[in-house]
């Protein structure tokens, strides 16, 4: 087996969806690099990275919920309206009813839960297609936003703004960086190494082919490198700035929901329902409960996204949430989810959302107008899904494979060296 194949199979997993995901990561890195050069280094500058996360955290949070909705075979068009409706109520609750802001956040999440229960009821227990229920919800809650807010903007108090525009505190010795962000980065790096070791243990327990040692190390080095780079970037922003709080909320949600969808029975039931609902039902999955949950969960996340946006904008306005559903849905599909349901991952959707975000940001830094940005984003969405469809019709998918094809012919006779972990990394550079 050639090392390229090893790499392809193991670096990001061997299955098609993983390969797809790797394709998107590759695209993301490529886009970042292209803009980094094009904008003379503005793209990866700390203030821009911070802004990028603040600007997109709410869309990415929506994408998490949307992924689960789409995997279960539904769609939610109402998220923007639900976000706006929650936003205006939460803003009112603080300015007019003097609710303290932490209570207002709880209040907002409760609104999301109630709306979600309403939509989930129609979808799961009455059997109205989610498209219709949420189309209705889109009108209902948009109207509700205008009814309550009289189409005016309502400002929100200082403390509440933290969840959208806040940063980690400054403490400890003056290192020239934001210490809190550095600590977070360190924790992330440790977590990555720990996870790799756990993964190796698991592989061994499964008596599967162990991943070659050099790949494990390469993978860790890449991940830790990225984390270290990101942590330093985020920590080196203007004094008072750091990795944004909205970004921390996002990362926490991504980790929690990734774990839920991958490693729990509840998560697996969502995929089962989306893949074949009748078969899932006959395997003991409680169909209605799963459908109810995904719809309700989506609205809770939409409420959270709405609050984060309001916090960042410092006011709830009548235009909040316009078009968010489309951004979230696009992120999920670019990230490799299937329209018919049953396929997709949280991390894929996040990468898909980041591709759109970086594209948006880079083009704006270049002074490209929103009209053209929209055209480009539309084409990217179409292209990403078209490549996916085409590759599925061709049987297999592998971006690395297609990239490496020109080299592979010469590589057909693998170097006859023993799989010695110590020596591999040095060679990897040559053959890879």
């Amino acid at each position, binding site marked *: 087996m050639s090392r390229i194949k090893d790499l392809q199979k193991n670096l990001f997993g061997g299955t098609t969806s993983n390969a797809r995901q790797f394709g998107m990561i590759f695209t993301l890195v490529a886009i970042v690099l292209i803009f980094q050069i094009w904008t003379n280094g503005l793209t990866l500058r700390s203030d821009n990275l911070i*802004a990028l996360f603040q600007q997109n955290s709410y869309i990415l949070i929506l994408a998490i919920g949307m992924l689960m909705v789409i995997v279960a075979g539904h769609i939610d068009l109402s998220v923007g309206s639900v976000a706006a409706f929650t936003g205006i109520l939460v803003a009112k609750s603080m300015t007019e009813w003097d609710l303290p802001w932490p209570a207002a956040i709880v209040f907002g999440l409760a609104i999301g839960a109630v709306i979600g229960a309403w939509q989930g009821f129609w979808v799961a227990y009455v059997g109205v297609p989610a498209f219709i229920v949420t189309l209705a919800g889109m009108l209902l809650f948009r109207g509700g936003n205008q009814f309550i807010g009289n189409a*005016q903007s309502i400002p929100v108090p200082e403390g509440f703004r933290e969840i959208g525009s806040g940063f980690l505190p400054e403490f400890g010795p003056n290192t020239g960086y*934001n210490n809190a962000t550095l600590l977070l980065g360190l924790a992330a790096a440790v977590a990555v190494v720990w996870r790799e070791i756990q993964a190796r243990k698991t592989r061994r327990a499964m008596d599967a082919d162990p991943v070659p040692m050099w790949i494990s190390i390469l993978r860790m080095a890449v991940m830790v490198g990225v984390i*270290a780079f990101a942590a*330093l970037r985020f920590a080196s922003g*203007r004094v008072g700035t750091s990795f944004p709080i909205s970004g921390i909320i996002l990362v926490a949600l991504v980790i929690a929901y990734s774990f839920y969808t991958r490693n729990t029975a509840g998560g697996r039931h969502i995929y089962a329902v989306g893949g074949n609902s009748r078969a899932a039902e006959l395997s003991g999955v409680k169909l209605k409960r799963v459908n109810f949950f995904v719809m309700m969960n989506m609205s809770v996340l939409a409420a959270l996204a709405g609050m984060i946006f309001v916090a960042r904008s410092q006011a709830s306005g009548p235009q909040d949430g316009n078009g968010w559903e489309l951004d979230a849905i696009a992120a999920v599909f670019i990230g490799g989810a299937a329209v018919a349901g049953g396929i997709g991952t949280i991390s894929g959707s996040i990468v898909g959302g980041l591709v759109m975000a970086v594209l948006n940001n880079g083009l704006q830094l270049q002074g490209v107008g929103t009209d053209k940005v929209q055209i480009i984003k539309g084409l990217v969405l179409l292209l990403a899904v078209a490549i996916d469809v085409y590759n599925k019709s061709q049987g297999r998918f592998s971006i690395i494979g297609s990239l490496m094809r020109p080299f592979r012919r010469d590589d057909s006779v693998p170097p006859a060296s023993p799989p010695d972990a110590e020596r591999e990394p040095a060679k990897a550079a040559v053959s890879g």
Partner: protein
Amino acid sequence: MRKFFGTSVVAVSAAAMLALAGCGSGRDGDSSSSGDAAKGFAANSLIGVALPAKTSENWVLAGDLFSNGLKEAGFQADVQYAGASTTVADQQAQITAMTTKGAKVIVIGATDAAQLATQVAAAHAAGAKVIAYDRLITNTPDLDYYVAFDNFKVGQLQGQALLDGMKAKKPNGPYNIELFSGSPDDNNAGVFFNGAMDVLKPEIDKGNVVVASGQKDVKQTAIQGWKAEGAQARMDQLLTSTYGSKELDGVLSPNDTLARAILTSVKGAGKPVPVVTGQDSEVESVKSIVKGEQYMTINKDTRNLVKETINMVKALQAGDKPQVNDTESYNNGSKVVDTYLLPPVAVTKANAAEAYANDPKLAPLTK
């Protein structure tokens, strides 16, 4: 296992070192925020201009004037419009991008005046001056200047013209009128409306002027997003509900786009054309005025407003204090903003030729 650990630690720390090295050193931005603004900045600096979505030709014109005017003055210009649907989020991102690119002055025509405080604060912290163009940005202490036409005056002129126009058609009242106002998220919409009501209210109280539908509250008269279809739909409903037999004498419309939509609705219903006010001197409306349909518009010559804004930018570049003529009236919720106000001009068929004599696009229409 130990071997694995050893190699990984080496590799991982190597990666971290690499990232460190690539990252350069320490925090940036410490100095720029404390920089002395009075010294001005380089003559070829970047100036950002963030405008709302291209919903009226006035904004398109302003954008062109900014691009050309700033370039002529030797600056680099980055002029951006918000997208059609995701306006606020777009504008927030655009302002942030301008800040990132190191714009020295950012001119903002806000889509939602209440939702830009975070970005304005960031721009200010990065050392940029922020000028609110045409619409006052609220609830932020970081806004530096405000340039606009005297919008209360605009409303007063509209109200007066409405009365004059109706009197010219029909010497004696009572007159039936309907009221329209602009987007509720636009700070100016309320100012226009209040200005107009300043003139109309006494007449209404006297019973000389009647709002036949009874819809006098700004919440009822507002047209979300200044959208023409919204005004047309509302007018359609008013005609059906109120003017089955009654005659409609006049309509207070806050701008030309809405005025034309109102006229379309009235004509569609087969009613005689009432006196309709407007604002902005849009091409189609000027044509309409010359034809005798729309009664009046306001000439807030965008050229002058842009010119004054660019003058401010130039003054800031030189390190001077820009000229302002109102330091009391415009409180944005956090502070009283230094303001430069330009006077608006009411234009009817009678004075159109004179009013647009200097406008290359509009002057031919009046001949």
